[in-house]
C-alpha cells in the first residue's frame, strides 16, 4: 500500500499528509473495533458494563491528534478510551483491565498522561482545571483536555470548573461530546441553552461549536484551543456535536426511547463512513487499506486481551493504594480477610 503513503494533501480541507490522514482513519476504525470487541466480551460475561464509542470516533481521535502526548494530559469521561491509543498502545490493555474489574485498570502506565475513566459525571472537570492551573504554576508547556458528555454539562461541577478556568486562565480544553443523549434523556430536556458551546459565556471564555462527526474539524478546533492555552490565553469550551450510534451501555435498550428512524438517519452520517468516503475520493484510501486496518485492530485487541486476562488478582490487593501505606486497622482487616479465606478463595455467598 506504499502508493498512498506518497499521496498529496487533500487541500483545502486539511494540511495533513496522506499518511497522516490514513492514520486518523485507522485510529477511528481501530477505536470502533476495540469497542465492539469489548461489547462482545461483555455479552460473554468476560467484562462488566461498558459504553461503546460508536459515533464518537471522529471527535475522540480528532482531539487526540491535536494534542502532544508527551506534554498534555487527557481526563476522559468513560466513552473515549478506545480512541486514545495515540497516547500509548498500553491504553488498550489498561482499558480492558478496567472493564474486567481489575484494580489496576485505572492505572495508565507512565508516561501515558491519561487519568482513569470518570464515572461521576463532570467530576473530572474541576480536576482538569486544577491540573492545568498547576502546570501553569510550574511553567510547563502542556495543556489539559477533558472530555464530558452533553448530560454532564448539567452538573454543578461543569459550571464551577468552567468558571474557575475562566478566572484562573487555566490552559485547559473543555470538550463536550454532545451525542444527543444522556442515557434516555435528549438534549432538549438537558438544557434550554442554544448550544452547549453557548455556555462559555457564563465563564467568559471562547466557546466553539464544531461538527463532531468531522475528525479534521475537531482536530483543528482542538489545535486552535491548545494554541491559545499554551500562549497563555486560557481555556476554551468546545462542543463537538455527533450522535450516539448505539446503546448508552451494554445495559441499555435505546428502542425504549429513541424515536423511530432517528438512529437510522444518524447512521447515514457515521463519522467513519464520512471520512472513509472523503479519503477514498482523495485517493488515499481503498478496500485493501480498510481490510488491513481492521485486521490490525483485531490483532492488537487479541494481544491486549490476552495480556489483560492473564493477570491474576490478589484478594488482598483490596487494601493497596488506599493510602501510601495502610492503617493499622486495615492491616488487621487484611489479616481477617486472609484468615477467613484460608485456601478456599472468596466466600462467594451468592454461589451457595
Amino acid at each position: 500500500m506504499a502508493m498512498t503513503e506518497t499521496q498529496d494533501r487533500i487541500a483545502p480541507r486539511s494540511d495533513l499528509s496522506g499518511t497522516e490522514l490514513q492514520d486518523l482513519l485507522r485510529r477511528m476504525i481501530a477505536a470502533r473495533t476495540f469497542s465492539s470487541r469489548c461489547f462482545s466480551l461483555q455479552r460473554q460475561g468476560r467484562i462488566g458494563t461498558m459504553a461503546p464509542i460508536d459515533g464518537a470516533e471522529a471527535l475522540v481521535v480528532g482531539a487526540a491528534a491535536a494534542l502532544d502526548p508527551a506534554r498534555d494530559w487527557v481526563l476522559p469521561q468513560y466513552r473515549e478510551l478506545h480512541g486514545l491509543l495515540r497516547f500509548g498502545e498500553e491504553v488498550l490493555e489498561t482499558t480492558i483491565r478496567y472493564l474486567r474489574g481489575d484494580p489496576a485498570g485505572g492505572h495508565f502506565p507512565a508516561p501515558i498522561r491519561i487519568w482513569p475513566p470518570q464515572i461521576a459525571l463532570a467530576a473530572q472537570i474541576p480536576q482538569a482545571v486544577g491540573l492545568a492551573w498547576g502546570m501553569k504554576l510550574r511553567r510547563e508547556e502542556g495543556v489539559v483536555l477533558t472530555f464530558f458528555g452533553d448530560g454532564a454539562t448539567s452538573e454543578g461541577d461543569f459550571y464551577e470548573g468552567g468558571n474557575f478556568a475562566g478566572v484562573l486562565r487555566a490552559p485547559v480544553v473543555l470538550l463536550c461530546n454532545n451525542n444527543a443523549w444522556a442515557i434516555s434523556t435528549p438534549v432538549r430536556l438537558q438544557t434550554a441553552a442554544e448550544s452547549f458551546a453557548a455556555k462559555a459565556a457564563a465563564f467568559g471564555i471562547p466557546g466553539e461549536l464544531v461538527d463532531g462527526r468531522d475528525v479534521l474539524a475537531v482536530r483543528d478546533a482542538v489545535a486552535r484551543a491548545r494554541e491559545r492555552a499554551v500562549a497563555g490565553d486560557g481555556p476554551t469550551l468546545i462542543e463537538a456535536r455527533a450522535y450516539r450510534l448505539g446503546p448508552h451501555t451494554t445495559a441499555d435498550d435505546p428502542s425504549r426511547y429513541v424515536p423511530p428512524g432517528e438512529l437510522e438517519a444518524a447512521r447515514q452520517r457515521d463519522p467513519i463512513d464520512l471520512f472513509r468516503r472523503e479519503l477514498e475520493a482523495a485517493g488515499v484510501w481503498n478496500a485493501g487499506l480498510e481490510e488491513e486496518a481492521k485486521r490490525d485492530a483485531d490483532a492488537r485487541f487479541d494481544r491486549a486481551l490476552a495480556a489483560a486476562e492473564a493477570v491474576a488478582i490478589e484478594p488482598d490487593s483490596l487494601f493497596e493504594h488506599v493510602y501510601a501505606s495502610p492503617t493499622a486497622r486495615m492491616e488487621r482487616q487484611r489479616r481477617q480477610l486472609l484468615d477467613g479465606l484460608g485456601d478456599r478463595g472468596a466466600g462467594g455467598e451468592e454461589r451457595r
Partner: protein
Amino acid sequence: MPVMNMVQAINATLHEEMARDDRVVVFGQDVAVNGGVFRATEGLYDRFGGERVVDTPLAEAAIVGAGVGLGVAGMVPVAEIQFLGFAYQAFHQIVGQMARLRYRSSGRLTVPIVVRAPFGGGVRTPELHSDSIEAQLANCPGLKIAMPSSAADAKGLLAAAIRDPDPVLFLEPLRGYRAIRDQVPEGEHLVPFGEARTVRGGDDVVIVAWSYMVEIARRASVELEQEGIAARVLDLRTIVPLDTGAIREAVEACGRAVVVQEAPETAGFASEVIATINDEAFYSLEAPVARVSGWDVPYPVGLLEDYHVPNVERVVAAVRRALQ
C-alpha cells in the same frame, strides 16, 4: 398474595400511590420515557403523563433542591437518584437543606419528599454505584432512612415514606431488585417506621442487619441451625428512627449479638448499633458484639467485590466468635 421481586414491588407501589394521591410527582434521571434504568418507574409516564413523571436534567443537587421547593408548593415529591453514590453530588441539598427546612422555618415550611436510590454491591457495577453511605446520612438529623430487605417491606415502607410528612431517604438494595422475591400484600399495606422485624427466631445469638445484609444474615442463620445454633435475625427496616427497644429485647434474650453491614467498618452504622447495645443492654452481654463489615477501603472493582462484601461465611464465623 402475589409474589414479586423488589423492583416490581416498588414499581407497583409507585403506581398505587400516584393513583391514590394526585399530588405525587415522580422525577429524576431517565425515570419517565425509559421507566428508570432498573424499570422501577416503568409505566408511570404512560399512565400519569409528563407533568407528574418528569425526566430532569442530570444534576442531583438540583433534583433534590427542586424537590424541596415542589414539596413546599404542596406537591408530594418522589425523586430518584440513579445510584446512591451520586447523592454525594446532592449532599448539601439533602443534609443541609432538605433535612432542615422544617427546623429552619420552625414548622412553617415542610417537605414531604421521598428520595429513592439504589445502592450496594454484588452486581459488578462501575465505581461509586455500590457505595453504602447510610451511616453518613444517619448522622444528619431531620432525615428518616428506610432500608427494606423484602419486597413486602419495600411496598409497605415506600407507601409509608410517601405519606410521611418528613423527608425520607428510601434506599433500595440493587442486588435485591431481582434476587429478592416474596409475597407482597395487595392493596393498602403500610409498614410503620421504627419497627424492626424478627426475620427468624432464635435465642443463642441475634444477628442485626438491614437491607440486603438481612438476606445474608438469614442464610447464615439457616446454616447455623444445622449446627444447632439458633440465630435470631433482626431486620432494622429503618435505621432512623431506630427501634432501640427491639434491639434491647433481642440482646437481652440472646446475650450475644452480631451486627452486619455492607459499608466500611469505621464509623459505619454497625457502630451505632453496637453503641446502642452498650447503652441499652450492656449487662445482658456475655461476649463482645461481633461486627461484620466491608473493609475500610473504597468500594472495590468487580474482580474484588466478593472479597469485600460480607458473605454468609463471614457472618457464620462472626457468630461463632460471638458464641465463644
